[in-house]
């Protein structure tokens, strides 16, 4: 635990899909400079909770969120919060790579363009190059920036999506099982990238893969049936879980 104020906090957050409650009274703090992993069996609410952090649940017709979530102390569900601004500060990378059917350059330039971050063409090129470098993709694509983003391999597409998220200079990056659709080598690259990005952003990653959580994260939250069962330092969760259910899950008894 640090003494600095938390980047994001959630207090008693519940999410309902119509009548069904998918997340139950979850309270959690997310800090800068570290990776927070959400683990748990399928349908435990971890992805749903992740999507409340940049209000992506708004796009689902019958979803309803209760409780309070703050970013730098500001309630993100308050009427004063502009969802466009929020999502610029809290970026997201999805489970399946979803590059736009545009060129590699245009994929990365998309965010800076819509947020007016570049004043000139040179500026924009600089942002694109920097983002691709940080995402570890620059060397592979620098000679073919005009090729379609969808023509890249799955792993490259996912790093392109990370570059795209980085390009708007967010403070928090949410990753929803970013490597679950990738092969082991591409997965290793993504994990390496997460390590490198850690110092710059608060990163939250949802994962099915417990080894991955152990490898990339400093804090781990275990979700089960919509409840946050246990939240703590990754080392403690994996070596000395306090809860019986966490232990059962980590040792492979269910899930």
């Amino acid at each position, binding site marked *: 635990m640090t003494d600095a104020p938390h980047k994001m906090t959630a207090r008693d957050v519940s999410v309902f899909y119509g009548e069904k409650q998918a997340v139950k009274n979850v309270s959690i703090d997310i800090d800068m400079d570290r990776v927070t992993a959400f683990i748990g069996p399928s349908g435990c609410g971890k992805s749903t909770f992740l999507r409340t952090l940049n209000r*992506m649940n708004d*796009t689902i017709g019958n979803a309803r969120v209760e409780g309070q979530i703050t970013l730098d102390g500001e309630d993100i569900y308050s009427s004063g919060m502009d*969802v466009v601004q929020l999502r610029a500060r809290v*970026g997201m990378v999805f489970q*399946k790579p*979803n590059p736009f059917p545009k060129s590699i350059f245009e994929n990365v330039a*998309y965010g800076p363009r*819509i947020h007016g971050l570049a004043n000139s063409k040179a500026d924009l090129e600089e942002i694109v190059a920097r983002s691709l470098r940080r995402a570890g993709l620059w060397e592979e694509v620098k000679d073919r920036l005009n090729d379609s983003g969808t023509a890249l391999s799955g792993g490259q597409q996912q790093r392109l999506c990370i570059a795209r*998220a980085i390009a708007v200079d967010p403070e928090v990056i949410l990753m929803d099982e970013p490597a679950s659709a990738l092969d082991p080598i591409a997965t290793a690259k993504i994990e390496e990238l997460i390590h490198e990005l850690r110092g710059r952003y608060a990163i939250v990653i949802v994962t099915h893969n417990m080894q991955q959580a152990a490898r990339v994260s400093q804090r781990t939250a275990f979700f089960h049936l919509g409840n946050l069962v246990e939240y703590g330092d990754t080392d403690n969760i994996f070596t000395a879980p306090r809860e019986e259910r966490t232990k059962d899950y980590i040792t492979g008894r269910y899930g």
Partner: protein
Amino acid sequence: MNAFALMFLVAGLGLIGWLTARSRAARFDRGGAKRLHSLPAQHGFFVAMWVVLPALLFVAAWGAISPALVKQTVLEHPAASQLPQFDFERDALLAEASRVAEQPGVAAFDPVAQQLVAPTRAAKVRYDWIGTAGAILLAFAGGAYAFTRIRASFPARSSVERGMMLMLLVASLIAILTTVGIFLSLLWESVRFFGQVSITDFLFGTHWSPQVIDPARPGRSLGAVPLFWGTFFIGAVIAMIVAIPFGLMSAIYLTQYAAPQVRRWMKPILEILAGVPTVVYGYFAALTVAPAVRDLAVAFGYPYASSESALAAGLVMGVMIIPFVSSMADDSIAAVPTAMRDGSLAMGATKSETISRVLIPAALPGVVAGILLAVSRAIGETMIVVMAASGAANITLNPFESATTVTKQIVDLLTGESEFDSPKTLAAFALGLTLFVITLLLNIVALRVVKRYREAYE
């Protein structure tokens, strides 16, 4: 025997074949086997198939060749020597004799035809009996053959499946063969037309006035360029200026903004628009839109504006096409993966930025295909232009002036009294053929685009 009665008879024989074969199969000695290869009913179908199919094929074939045989026999009759030599008149008399032969108690108008009534009737009766006897014989022969083959070990199921497959194949071929037939008949008449009129005169001539044709060089007043220009101007320019923006915008609203309950009643209403008979649109164009457009033109300073303007027909046609554009656009926008939309929204893009920068570009091939299909429908559309457009073949860019279309001219050429082999009448077929080829190409391009686009997301 009358063809319908014959079919019933054959069907009845088939039913008998089915019943007997099934009851026989039910009594097969199973020889200890727990389960036979085929069910009794499948043996029944096998036999019924063999009873019905050869007989029906024979009836169809006989129906095609027996008129020629009847004609041949009648021509050999002594009275036929009085028939005129000219094909056209001879066929007319033979047809008259044939009609009278089927209606006892009616006399033919022409004496030669009257003489031929009796031999025609005799020939008809004879060939009819041959046909009937042949069909029944074949039904029995087929049934007998099939009946000798069924036994406990006979794989009737496989044969029945194959028979079903063949029947379905024939059913699907019929539409294709009809299209080929239409194309060939158009081609045939067009070849006759181009025997009289030079193809370059027709395709590149800019003067169209079929009422006044110079026999020395008919092509001079049969230049189709004004018609194709008018068709393009009304169907592909004016109509699309209406249909593309409204169709696209309604698709965007329905897929992205409309609440589910709004979508639930709005989408069917839009689709109903596609089911309105085009003649109704024609009334609307001629009685409501055309006068309004003329008044508008007068207000704009065209005192002699036509009430049969290109604009009136094009506007209404555009409205008619809206559902096509919107439903194709709707489908292709809905087919863009949600992940793409979420990806854009998660970057902090607004809804309209997401639509214009991600959804529309991703859906573009489907939208373009929809537009191409809509164009091909618009330029083939007839009723609206027949009722609202003029017959004056102008090459104009002024929407208040009158313009005519290919379909409108085809209707004009084929109605009224004129010889069937004059260049004027035959021009209708050449126009039809050209239009057919154009819309066919448009459809092929559109389907290709759609196909490539589907592959991109699967």
